[in-house]
């Protein structure tokens, strides 16, 4: 299988050869070069995709020891593909099974990038940014299939079993719809929260940690996209966590939404999630939306996502797909993205790209129709 650089080299060599052959009026030769180039460009990525599928299937077999239909792979960063499994696959990573349905992985490498895929959706936990390290993060691949729970540098992978599903608050019973669930609790830093004891009643919950201390709390909506999670340990110290949701892309833009937290600790200091400039958010949104298969479970149609730095991102959906995104920063610039506009621009560009071919074909047809004298 050729690397991207080698593939580019093939194209770079083929193009001048094609041009030279065409210039020399050697149409047969130029046709052959064109066909070979197209064949190479089309088939090589296909081979790569096939290899990846094969790897996924292999991973699936491995992970079936732990859950149903879960694919796990690790990437060192966006460029180097290092397939992972449930044994150490990255330098500094250790994986061990803690319970029958759980396994944990510790990643020491600050550049580690984790991607997990379930059958239907996927999520990622990015350890790139040091800011993330101080927050506990949770990402659900799918509300019924798979979670990734991060506690600092410790990552816990929790395939949701039938038993665990029973413990998870059904979205309809949660006053907040699909938002705050058991993952949010774990994100609070109660890494040893005993899931077996977790009980939801409407938007209130009770649970115990591994040391038997009681935890109780509630989730309150603050806006369309924000929630506040208040909880207390042994009924005394109260913690408050503000949950916001922001879009995030994976290497294939399969992951439109990732949870982000800013929390107020006992010391009263608000710890913010990573800050993004308007351009970055716009870029993420633009990159994420086109391949978004449907509105993800975490977002509500017509939602305005408000970020910790005041940036607002409004999603307007139509027939289950996000049609328009507007991004605005307090007081100044705004950006927007519309699917319709993109389609218009793309069609115009494709037509323009094909224009010479159309003109040549038209000219040849005219020439063919002219009677030869």
């Amino acid at each position: 299988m050729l690397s991207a650089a080698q593939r580019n080299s093939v194209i770079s060599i083929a193009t001048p050869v094609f041009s030279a052959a065409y210039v020399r009026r050697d149409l047969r030769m130029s046709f052959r070069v064109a066909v070979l180039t197209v064949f190479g460009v089309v088939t090589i990525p296909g081979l790569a995709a096939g290899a990846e599928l094969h790897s996924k299937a292999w991973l699936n077999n491995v992970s079936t020891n732990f859950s149903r239909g879960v694919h796990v792979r690790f990437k060192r960063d966006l460029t180097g593909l290092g397939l992972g499994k449930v044994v150490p696959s990255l330098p500094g990573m250790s994986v061990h099974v803690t319970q029958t349905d759980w396994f944990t992985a510790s990643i020491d490498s600050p550049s580690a990038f984790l991607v997990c895929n379930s059958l239907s959706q996927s999520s990622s936990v990015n350890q790139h940014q040091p800011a993330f390290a101080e927050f506990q993060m949770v990402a659900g691949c799918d509300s019924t299939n798979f979670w990734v729970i991060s506690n600092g540098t410790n990552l816990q992978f929790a395939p949701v079993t039938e038993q665990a599903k029973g413990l998870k608050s059904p979205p309809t019973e949660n006053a907040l719809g699909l938002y705050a669930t058991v993952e949010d609790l774990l994100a609070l830093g109660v890494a040893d929260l005993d899931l077996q004891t977790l009980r939801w009643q409407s938007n209130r919950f009770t649970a115990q940690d591994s040391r038997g201390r009681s935890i109780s709390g509630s989730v309150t909506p603050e806006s369309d996209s924000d929630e506040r999670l208040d909880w207390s340990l042994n009924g005394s110290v109260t913690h408050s966590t503000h949950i916001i949701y922001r879009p995030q892309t994976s290497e294939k833009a399969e992951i439109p939404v990732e949870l982000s937290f800013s929390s107020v600790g006992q010391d009263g200091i608000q710890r913010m999630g990573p800050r993004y400039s308007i351009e970055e958010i716009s870029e993420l949104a633009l990159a994420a939306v086109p391949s978004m298969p449907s509105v993800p479970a975490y977002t509500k149609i017509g939602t305005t996502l408000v970020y910790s730095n005041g940036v607002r991102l409004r999603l307007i959906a139509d027939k289950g797909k996000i049609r328009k995104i507007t991004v605005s920063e307090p007081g100044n610039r705004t950006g927007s993205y519309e699917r319709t506009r993109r389609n218009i621009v793309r069609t115009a560009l494709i037509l323009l790209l094909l224009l010479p071919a159309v003109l040549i074909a038209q000219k040849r047809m005219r020439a063919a129709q002219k009677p030869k004298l």
Partner: protein
Amino acid sequence: MRNYKRVTILPNVSGQPRSAEIYIARVFIVSAAAVLVLTGVAKLISATGRSPMLEILDPIFLVPFRQLLIAAGVLEVAVAAACAFRRSHALSPLLVAWLATLFFSYRLGLSFMGWKKPCSCLGSLTDALHLNPTISDRIAKVILSYLIVGSYCLVIWLRHLDRHAVSRPT
């Protein structure tokens, strides 16, 4: 039956005098080919890089920027080769005009869609020269303007010559 004389701006056609216009036209085509080779190769080299930007999807064609850079680079090199090696230069300005219009429309489309980032049209070449993205974006705009204005002027002029030749049977 009328005989038509095809107009070319080829300077080495025997018996044809070199006018200033022909010289300018030839300079433009050679310079356009040089510029296109430079930018095309820059794009192809950039496409082999490891910038995270290359993995982001292009908002118009929905392919990663890496693939788009490869496609654009190949197109530019091909047009440059056609400009440099074709004996009849009548097609060269048309090709340059087409490519420049394509790039111009792409930029216009990005702007129409609200894309605010500078276009990384010159790839990582400008990074190597330690130019900031805004300046490299301006350079790319200047190059694009040069190609558009030059090629369209040349196309119009050639049309004019062609019509003149057609109306004057030999």
